[in-house]
């Protein structure tokens, strides 16, 4: 990897971070909204912990995994809409006229998304610690949790980039937000899958990869080192990242039709 390429990625990642930081709504909302939902759910659903088989006596600890996924969804939207705006304004054409390698654009954009994801993850973890959540996997688990968050951010950011490159429209990217939210809701977000009584819901949650991402995160917080949950979580996160990156790379090649 040449110095030039690294510098290109660095500058593009810097731009991604700077423009996110300069849009307060893109920083504050993805931090505040998940925390509010966490506060509401953890107080309102605390009684669910009395169900036989519930893995912890703290619903806050159980639900702390959810903000990580909500943050990933916001990362998808932000990465997608930023890139779509570059397409719509012609900024992508400006970049295409430089010797920049297409993959540097994608790497830079995703670098910025992952930086934002890291900030979010630190906020969720800090919020959990402040509110008394005991991380069952300890300090090592927190480190793994951070890495896991970055992998999820990479995959979802690439998904947003793919949508932007495919449609070229910020509105189309934002239009996918409710769809992603449905995936989040039809998952083990609010209840362990084995305790979901409605058959179709349990089946849908079992088929939904988001469940395994949440369960991977949750295992580090409430269970400890659960090899199966981590393998499934990391496996699906890696799969999403690989598929989304491939799609985004192909779409970028099509979008940058320079000869």
């Amino acid at each position, binding site marked *: 990897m040449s110095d*030039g390429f690294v*510098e*290109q990625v660095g*500058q*593009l990642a810097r*731009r991604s971070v*700077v*423009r996110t930081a*300069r*849009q307060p709504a893109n920083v504050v909302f993805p931090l505040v909204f998940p925390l509010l939902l966490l506060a509401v759910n953890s107080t309102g659903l605390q009684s669910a912990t009395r169900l036989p088989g519930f893995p912890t006596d703290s619903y806050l600890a159980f639900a702390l995994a959810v903000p990580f996924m909500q943050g990933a969804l916001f990362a998808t939207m932000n990465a997608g809409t930023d890139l779509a705006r*570059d397409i719509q*304004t*012609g*900024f992508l*054409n*400006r*970049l*295409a*006229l*430089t*010797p*920049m390698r297409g993959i540097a654009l994608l790497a830079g954009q995703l670098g910025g998304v992952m930086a934002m994801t890291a900030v979010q993850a630190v906020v969720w973890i800090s919020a959990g610690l402040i509110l008394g959540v005991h991380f069952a996997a300890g300090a090592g688990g927190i480190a793994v949790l951070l890495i896991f968050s970055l992998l999820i951010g990479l995959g979802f950011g690439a998904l947003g980039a793919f949508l932007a490159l495919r449609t070229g429209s910020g509105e189309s990217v934002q239009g996918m937000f409710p769809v992603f939210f449905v995936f989040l809701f039809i998952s083990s977000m609010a209840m362990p899958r084995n305790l979901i009584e409605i058959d179709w819901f349990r089946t849908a949650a079992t088929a939904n990869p988001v469940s395994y991402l949440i369960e991977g995160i949750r295992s580090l917080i409430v269970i400890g080192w659960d090899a199966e949950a981590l393998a499934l979580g990391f496996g699906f996160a890696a799969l999403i990242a690989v598929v989304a990156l491939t799609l985004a790379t192909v779409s970028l090649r*099509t*979008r940058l*039709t*320079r*000869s």
Partner: protein
Amino acid sequence: MADEHGIVASGLVREFKKGPRAVDGIDLVVHPGEIYGFLGPNGAGKSTTVHMLTTLLPPTEGTATVAGYDIVREGPQVRAAIGAALQEAALDPLLTGREHLRLQTTLQGIPRSERARRGDVLLERVGLSQAADRKVRGYSGGMKRRLDLALALVHSPRILFLDEPTTGLDPQSRSALWQEVGRLAQDDGVTVFLTTQYLEEADVLANRVGIIDHGKIVAEGTPAQLKAEVGRPTVEVVPVDPEDKERAAGILARFGEPCAAIQGVAVRLRTGEADLAEIVRALDSENLKVENLQLHQPSLDDVFLAKTGRSLEGAGEEDQEPELALEPA
């Protein structure tokens, strides 16, 4: 074959899947150091041509070389030799002018030690030093265009493409940009390919003009040549006393053929504007008092009218250029 270091296009065509031939067989030659004005209404095919010549859009047919490099087979070499400020200044409203230059110099591979200095020089040159650390969203249209131009120049390109660089600018900003473009061509020897829908811009700035309509070049030459092609200048005389109109017409008839006039009487000059002094002397010797005397030179609009049967003003309103699609037909 023209000079390989300018721009040479031969039979350039671009078709879109669900649209007409946006560019329909363009042949053109732009010499090094020349400012070539590509004049036409909205939707004529100007931007599509620029996108092809800058390698952003592959041609459906035809060939072109830019700076001696083939636009299809040698895209990276073409891009290294050119700078481009495309239609609508493509800037990030959240970045400052200086941050734009930092990004652009990095992506253009300017050595790290030179980047800041190069950026400062260009900001100074386009008059944005004071505003360099302000976010672009607070810039006026003229400032955005000037920053766009600075960004196009960071790697000292030999050829500069400017796609409607002054559209929407106030007269002062327009004039400042013209000055800078003129300086680039004259002092730095940069070849400039400039698209415009403004007659005045092509007239003032371009050494040669190509007039494009419906994807085809309908006329090409220096502004003076093009105007001379469509006709000679006319002179209109408005006598102080309207009763003298007939007498004035008699005097003017010595210098050309009568033609339509708005207020007074007019003739199309037989030998050109050199007759103007003779006309003044003839009117004076006949003691005919004149309220107004005007020489009308043919304009590029007259050229466009003669070649297409339409006036350039508003000609593009009925047929907008198709949005640049990705898939060739």
